[in-house]
């Protein structure tokens, strides 16, 4: 059949499967790195902002605004094409990693901050009244609560941004889309593109179900 031949040609699947599997690994490890460092950086920024020092909060808010308002693809292109002209050359995968980490951190910071400011004042005061330092209250009382209350949005945001690793194709990172794109060009078949879509489905469909499960669980716990 025409359609199957174009989109799911077995011969082409067999030919490009190994390359695609390698690309899946690239996508996966960049995603994992982004999620870990994005969460950590976002939490750190929210923590710093809690000190409510103007010279600290101001740049943090500005950073979070910019990273949430600018398309990541634009940021990536600015860095990728702009930096070499001032003598800084970054690896393509590092540009991808850096931008996605910063974007995720901005969202995580906002999510944490919203919770930190909406927790009852008494939570901060109970900690302080028992002699915990501000940092200890933050680490042992506030953050664990902020984390628990926000697992669904944190998971969703992490997944959304992990999928943005696909943007790496635009600057030549050898991840799923870029490998599938060149395979399509070489083979003259749409099959590698279908394979790419299926690869994402295999990775992210279970993740979607998981996030749905988490959402329900945390919904009923209240």
């Amino acid at each position: 059949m025409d359609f199957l031949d174009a989109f799911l040609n077995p011969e082409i699947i067999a030919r490009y499967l190994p390359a695609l599997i390698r690309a899946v690994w690239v996508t996966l490890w960049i995603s994992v790195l982004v999620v870990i460092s994005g969460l950590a950086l976002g939490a750190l920024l929210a923590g710093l902002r809690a000190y409510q020092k103007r010279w600290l909060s101001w740049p943090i808010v500005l950073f979070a605004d910019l990273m949430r308002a600018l398309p990541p693809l634009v940021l990536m292109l600015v860095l990728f094409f702009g930096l070499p002209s001032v003598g800084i050359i970054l690896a393509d995968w590092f540009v991808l990693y850096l931008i996605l980490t910063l974007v995720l951190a901005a969202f995580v910071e906002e999510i944490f901050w919203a919770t930190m400011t909406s927790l009852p004042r008494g939570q901060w005061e109970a900690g302080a009244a028992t002699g915990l330092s501000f940092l200890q209250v933050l680490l042992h009382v506030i953050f664990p609560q902020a984390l628990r209350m926000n697992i669904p949005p944190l998971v969703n945001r992490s997944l959304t941004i992990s999928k943005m690793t696909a943007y790496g194709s635009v600057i030549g990172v050898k991840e799923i889309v870029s490998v599938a794109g060149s395979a399509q060009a070489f083979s003259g078949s749409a099959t590698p593109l279908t394979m790419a879509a299926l690869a994402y489905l295999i990775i992210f469909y279970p993740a979607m179900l998981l996030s749905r499960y988490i959402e329900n669980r945390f919904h009923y716990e209240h």
Partner: protein
Amino acid sequence: MTAAQPLPTLEITALEKRFGETQVLRSIDLKVQNGELVFVIGPSGSGKSTMLRCCNRLEEPTSGAIHVSGKPMLGIPRKELDRMRLQVGMVFQGFFLYPHLTALKNVTLAQRKALKRPRAEAEARALEMLDKVGLKHKADAMPSELSGGQQQRVAIARALALDPKVMLFDEPTSALDPELVGSVLKVMRDLREGGMTMIVVSHEMQFAREAADRVVFMDGGVIVEEGPPEEIFGNPKSDRLKAFLSRVSGEAA
């Protein structure tokens, strides 16, 4: 002046507090001796909570001095303040247990992080305190699984476990259903018998009559009258106290 007056456990001197333009406390002086239970009454907005909160600097006093066993609470570095706060236990109207931690962990957290007690010691101490408030069997319960009265008793255990010199209670039973009030008052009574120094802001006048050494009446940010409970309730002097008491007993009746 007595020759050898003992050092007060808590001493408030010329305490003032302003929120912007509004003067909430004006020149409060109060000495609480070791083992004493001072009961504070007064109309809403008279500054009772603010006074308690100034004592461990949850509110920053505008001027005046606070001393705990002779050591200053004000004008000390942040680190020192955290250490001083350990000596002043605080119980809130809204309990404020940490919802993500079990009852036991609520009681061990500050012991371990602020007092740096080893885990085993902190847990032993926590269990002892939970036992004292009658909740040893609830050590592994989450706050959401406890009744209001139980939560408040865990909150008391959380403060007690740090071996404070003085305990401050800000309307500890006001958020509780009537049938749960008794359990918390019983714990407070036990504490008093054990010799704990306490300042209690509350509307439980019956408790004041039975348990207080001294009753302090505040109105408009000043201490209007103070004395033993029999005096304050039986023979009020100022008109403001008389009016307050008749209003309160009117509500109770």
